[in-house]
């Protein structure tokens, strides 16, 4: 996927968009309203930025009643992140599987 990095760089090149994404990374899931309150731009502008982030796979939306909640999708950053971080996540999961297997081997 030669273009995966380009898309991510382009998406995060906008400082306002990057700030929104970083805030979701730091503080977890937020509604559009939460994000607008501190973004210094209008709600439609925030929604537009969130749409671009969503298209790049960097955020996910979840509808609950009339509210839409957004959360950061850290996995989307994989093409940008050093292999050691990716492998650490990989081994964490594998060790969980190993633990499950060892339990089953008892029976």
């Amino acid at each position, binding site marked *: *996927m*030669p273009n995966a*990095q380009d898309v991510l*760089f382009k998406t*995060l090149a906008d400082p306002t968009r*990057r700030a929104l994404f*970083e805030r979701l*990374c*730091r503080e977890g899931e937020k509604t559009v309203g939460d994000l607008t309150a501190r973004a210094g731009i209008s709600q439609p502008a925030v929604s537009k930025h969130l749409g671009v982030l969503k298209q790049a796979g960097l955020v996910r939306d979840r509808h609950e009643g009339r509210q839409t909640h957004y959360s950061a999708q*850290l996995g989307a*950053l994989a*093409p*940008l*992140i*050093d*292999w*050691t*971080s990716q*492998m*650490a*996540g990989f*081994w*964490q999961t*594998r*060790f969980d*599987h*190993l*633990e*499950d*297997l*060892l339990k089953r*081997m*008892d029976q």
Partner: protein
Amino acid sequence: MNEAATETRTVTMEREFPYPPEKLWRALTQPHLIEEWLMKNDFQPVVGHNFNLRGDWGGVLDCEVLAVEPNKTLSYTWNFKHDDAAYNLASVVTFTLTPTRSGTHLRMEQSGFRPDQKQAYGGAHAGWQKFLANLEQVVARAD
């Protein structure tokens, strides 16, 4: 190739299991058990044996057994070839088992390198370095 591009990096994962080393050793060295927690494989606990690990995603790792010390140490290469150099990886995985009072301490260390993607963006994207470093920390904490 400059120094940064060939720098060796290491990932370690440690966990204690309430079972004797012999049991962990079986999970680490018997192909049908390896498949259950790691990947499909044609592993044999023989130094010099070449084998593949096949991931669910279709990726195939080229491996060679480097060290076998029953119930103590297992080491093999873990190489991934990809058309895009950014995804290439040449590394060595070493499992070390240490008996404890209540079971076994397992340490996995993966050392290796691959051409650093960040390096490719070096000059033109110098400003990104710090941002990416921050993101790595965020991701590490998210684990």
